[in-house]
């Protein structure tokens, strides 16, 4: 299943902020300084020293926790790759914000009709793809088929062991993500969230949820059986009681 991904090559980033600017324009937000995720900011740059700049954005997980926990399916992983959000379905439980291991979704806390806010990989632009990749002047952010980007990331890392830390961030994290990072240092040193879970997080929930049909089936039979057994005992006792009454009366 070929679908869109994003590759961020930290070694190529010059920290110009074109991606941030393009993101705000594409999502029709007023231009503003971006320092961390909030209801107006879907991407921002971290200055990690030594001319190293690291972007943050939604990771567009292959098996997204946010989409798996959403009770109404307002968040979903589209076949095209982006994880999108439908505010008309959302009831505002904010389970997605709890569940996201990367701390990405944010909320309109001061609205009477609040929405969850996050990068949707410019799904509204369709085949044009994310605005940030289009705007990046150095090729630090590129977009394409996720599988091809992963192959490219591995090729770059392997071909220049001096420039790259030998790891692609987003291969194992939470079971794999649509956004991949490569860079000069280990991911934690770059300020990327250290997500230790290797498999898809939704599996943890499914391990419990899959037992529900059995609980209903065997619980029902067991309780029905108990009801029948103890009721019979009571009926018998009552019948015996009535019997004796007749004999003596």
């Amino acid at each position: 299943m070929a679908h869109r991904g994003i590759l961020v090559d930290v070694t190529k980033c010059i920290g110009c902020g074109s991606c941030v600017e393009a993101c705000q324009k594409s999502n029709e937000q007023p231009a503003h300084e971006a320092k961390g995720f909030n209801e107006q900011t879907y991407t921002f740059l971290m200055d990690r020293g030594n001319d190293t700049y690291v972007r943050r954005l939604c990771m567009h997980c292959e098996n997204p926790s946010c989409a798996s926990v959403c009770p109404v399916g307002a968040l979903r992983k589209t076949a095209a790759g982006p994880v999108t959000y439908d505010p008309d379905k959302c009831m505002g439980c904010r389970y997605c914000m709890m569940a996201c291991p990367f701390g990405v979704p944010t909320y309109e806390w001061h609205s009477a009709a609040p929405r969850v806010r996050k990068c949707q990989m410019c799904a509204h632009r369709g085949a044009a793809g994310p605005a940030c990749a289009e705007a990046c002047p150095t090729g630090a952010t590129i977009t394409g088929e996720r599988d091809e980007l992963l192959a490219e990331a591995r090729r770059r890392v392997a071909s220049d062991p001096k420039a790259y830390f030998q790891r692609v961030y987003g291969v194992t994290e939470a079971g794999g993500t649509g956004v991949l990072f490569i860079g000069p240092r280990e991911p934690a040193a770059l300020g990327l969230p250290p997500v230790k879970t290797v498999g898809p997080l939704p599996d943890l929930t499914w391990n419990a949820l899959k037992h529900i049909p059995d609980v209903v089936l065997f619980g029902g039979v067991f309780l029905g059986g108990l009801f029948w057994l103890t009721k019979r005992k009571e009926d018998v006792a009552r019948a015996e009681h009535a019997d004796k009454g007749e004999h003596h009366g």
Partner: protein
Amino acid sequence: MVKNRFASFQLGFWAAISAVMIAVLGIVAFLRFTQGIGAVTNLSDSFPWGLWIGFDVLCGVGLAAGGFAVTATVHILHLKEFKAIMRPTVLTAFLGYILVVCGLVFDLGKPWNIWHPIIMWNPHSVMFEVGWCVMLYTTVLSLEFAPVVLERFKLDWLLRFLKPITPVLVIMGVILSTLHQSSLGSLFLILPEKMHPLWYTPVLPVLFFVSALAAGIGMTVVESWFSRRAFGKPIETHLLSRLSRVSVVVLAIYLALRMRDLIGRHALATLFPLNSVSAMFLAEIVLGVVVPMVLLSIPRFRLSPRRLAVAQGMVVLGFIFHRLNVSVTAVEAATGRAYLPSAMEFMVSAGLVAVGIWIFLLACRYLPIFPEGAMTEEEETVRQPAGAAPARPARPVAGTVTAFDRT
């Protein structure tokens, strides 16, 4: 007489306090629904779930667990003597669920979409399951409670309709409660990255179910004692004592599960160095589980309803501690983010509890909640001459109860 006057003074005091609490609740509600959740809470993007989820929802559901435990004892195990405490327990469960739904109306960003899970399905979401359990079990609880209202208004033809389906309702109630209690624990299974190992465990659903059972029984005992004080109703000490023996077993199972899990995951070591997090854990386990378990296992201790209520009150508090530790302490400890509920968050939770207590008091006054009504209408008409029903047969009923007692 002096005692009565004292009791009415207490009621008057309580009425004044609760009126203020409910008025404040109204003001906060206005702010919350016009200015947004951020205007009244300390919730943030890094701490999206707080007191309203941790207390109103997690504890409201848990404290309702007495409802399914006691109805199952009466209708499935046919231990009819427990019928004397069934109605107050079902009422408590019903109010617990009302607390949950009201808490959700405050906490959900767009509560007017609360019905969406009916038509927008995502069976992979625990929250989807929780939503369905709330809807279905609230329906079951209202049907289980309906006979009380129907009796009051003498709608016998409707009662006759309800009676044959009672066992089915009760069985559905037990299954739905089992699923619901455990799924509140499952909510947190997807957060291994964001929770302290003292609380994050794959067996969370099981722990939530067993501890809810303990809290449900505890609540039943506490509220029986409370209604005796408020209304001077006779208290079924022997029933509460028997229930408390069950509590000892449930608490022991919980403790065994909890310790087995902590040791199995090598998580006990994270207690050290001792800090505020380990203090929260110890308070929860020692004061909320171990101490009441030991106290309730002493036969002499179980003779006094007041002592029973105190020990069971500890069980209920320990349970509330566990839920808040899972939803707040564990998340704070693992992520390093701080959250302290705002004054207005506390006021909403307290105001909703005050509303719940008012409904309980009013229901006790105007509906046949206590044995007099309950036993005469359904069971005793068979055995007693028809005319004896409306008088106050509080003692004779207690008499027939002991005749049925199987211990």
